[in-house]
């Protein structure tokens, strides 16, 4: 995809970034668009202002959260998923990338050094896709190189695309996880506009697994539609006929959720989408979800499909779900958010020892407060 315009802030600290753009204009102001979809076609390269490294904004102590950390250096996304929360979130809709890897890394190093015993999982996908298009994946390459030497950090790239070529020859040292959000082709076609098709995503997974990267899978958001059961079974089979469960570091599962304002936005922006027309309940966290018994049924069924293909050895967790759902789906539940953080570090230590520098100490994680 080509951008309609590229604007570079003259205060960008790394002039080398400019070589990625044959044409650009200089301005310290990003172009303004009222429609967030318009903003997806215009790139603004910005300097780092303020802090970009923080814990995932979805963390809520009512759920058992994975407490991943994020670098919010990408804002907006060239893809157009009907369920994307960005349509109700962004005030500045121009696709913006902070092109100052040095400053970002300084912030990460400083903050992660404060808890040297902890394995920080750090994503770049909070407000956009990590690898959607050029030149985002070039920025990702810079980060991959820098994370190789960070002892207690794992970089998590997450995408719905297939632009992984720039990553393949990079020395990553096992310190970067490349992850995909996956859904059946029926959903990709209708609800994940502009993203790579399932087959392309799977091919890209094979490539990064071949290059030694741990792969992450996110069955999130699972979406109900007529025939969803068979569709998710085919999805799991398609993925694991191409990649080895040994290469998959973790699998997250979640279901469609959005707040009431988002619901209106979706119905307004995508009137032909039916995702908001299913039976959904507004919970005390002000989010619509499928009723809990239906979600549990979805999760259990997906787990059974994963078991059938031998992927039950991968660490599997739920995203934004309460402890009772964990118990009913897995028959067990981490005792706290810190405990889940520990379990994830432990699974990395056991299954991908090159990705972690020391055995995680449970007591430290259990003492974490949120």
């Amino acid at each position, binding site marked *: 995809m080509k951008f309609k315009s590229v604007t570079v802030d003259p205060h960008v600290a790394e002039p080398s970034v400019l070589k990625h753009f044959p044409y650009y204009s200089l301005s310290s102001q990003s172009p303004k668009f009222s429609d967030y979809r318009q903003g997806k076609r215009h790139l603004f390269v910005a300097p780092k202002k303020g802090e970009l490294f923080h814990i995932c904004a979805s963390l809520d102590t009512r759920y058992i959260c994975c407490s991943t950390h994020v670098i919010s250096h990408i804002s907006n996304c060239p893809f157009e998923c009907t369920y994307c929360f960005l349509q109700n979130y962004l005030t500045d809709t121009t696709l913006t990338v902070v092109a100052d890897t040095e400053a970002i890394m300084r912030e990460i190093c400083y903050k992660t050094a404060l808890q040297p015993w902890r394995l920080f999982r750090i994503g770049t996908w909070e407000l956009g896709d990590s690898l959607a298009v050029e030149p985002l994946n070039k920025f990702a390459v810079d980060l991959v190189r820098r994370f190789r030497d960070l002892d207690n950090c794992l970089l998590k790239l997450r995408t719905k695309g297939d632009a992984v070529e720039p990553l393949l020859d990079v020395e990553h040292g096992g310190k970067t996880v490349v992850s995909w959000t996956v859904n059946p082709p029926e959903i990709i076609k209708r609800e994940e506009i502009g993203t790579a098709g399932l087959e392309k995503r799977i091919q890209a997974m094979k490539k990064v697994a071949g290059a030694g990267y741990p792969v992450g899978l996110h069955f999130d958001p699972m979406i109900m539609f007529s025939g969803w059961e068979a569709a998710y079974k085919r999805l799991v089979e398609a993925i694991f006929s191409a990649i080895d469960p040994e290469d998959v570091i973790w699998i997250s599962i979640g279901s469609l959720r959005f707040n009431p304002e988002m619901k209106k936005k979706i119905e307004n922006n995508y009137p032909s989408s039916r995702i*908001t*027309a299913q*039976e959904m*309940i507004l919970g*005390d966290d002000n989010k619509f*979800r499928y009723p*809990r018994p239906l979600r549990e049924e979805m999760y259990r069924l997906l787990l059974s499909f994963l078991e059938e293909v031998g992927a039950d050895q991968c660490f599997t967790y739920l995203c934004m779900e*309460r402890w009772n759902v964990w118990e009913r789906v897995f028959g067990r539940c981490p005792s706290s958010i810190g405990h889940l953080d520990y379990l994830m570090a432990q699974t990395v230590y056991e299954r991908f020892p090159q990705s972690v520098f020391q055995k995680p100490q449970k007591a430290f994680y259990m003492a974490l407060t949120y």
Partner: protein
Amino acid sequence: MEQVSIANSKIHVINPGHIDLGLDFSYVLDLIGLWNTTRLFDSLEMSGIVCPLVAVDTDLSTRKGSLKLIDGFKRLEWARQKDLEKIPVATVHMTNMDLLVFFLSKYAPMLKSCVSKALFLRFLLKVGANRQAVVDKAMKSLGLQAHKGLLEKYLRIAQLPERFLAFCHKKDFSLKRCLNFTYQPRALLERIMDLEGQISLSASLLQEVCDSISEIIRRKEIDVEEFFQLDEIKGIIDSDLECSYKTGLLRQAIRRLRYPAVTRIQKELCDIEKQYLASLPFKVKWDETLENRKLIITASIKQIDEFSRLRASFSSPEAKEGIKRLLSYF
């Protein structure tokens, strides 16, 4: 046309049929029930038209030879009913801004509801008032914030079906409530109005029913009329039941269609409660969204000896079994 000049206006005596009604807002006032003509018509029967009607000669009067009436719409209506051949009409020249100020002074003080304000703002734009002037002057006169975005919201509301607008005005629905209805299918809002009088339509019920029906028709991929032909809906609407009872039944039926899984499980939970807990001296409540595993048990006592009985009831086999079964759903 006979003509007499007085100061900067001219008084014509003309045929009522030659007057242009393009600047008529009174039909809106009729629609929302703000205009009661009974007393005016009684007075006209007694005295005839005493004051001349007022028509405007502005750049809005584009049709050559036509006079656009701005004051006296009901008197004109009466004159036409009486087949009068001639009525007095004063014509004045006004700029667009003069006209805006005139309309504001004439109508703004009587417009209190969100709907009446929405219709008035749309009227001003329709008759050619400058958009910025409407934001700056009209919105302020109506007690609203002078903001373009707010104007757009009011204009959205003005697009709702007429009968529905009249209903919203009658119930004095808020801006937020009215705006919510703008997201509903038009055909649904029109069809719901057919039920007025048959069911008790409060603001919250109307919102709930519209939200639910609109989701059901999207999910089932049927149209509004097909929804109302569903057996479980048609049976209730066509029944001769009393209004509030019918409302309750309809609400339940719509809820079952919208939340089939949740209503099924709620029924199972209620059945457990009836079977095991109904005879015990405490009440058990659970999270109706089914999200949280938490039972709330309440009891009230007046005497200390009741406390012993209450404590014993908690330990009864029925209580344990009932609570165990309820918790197993969460």
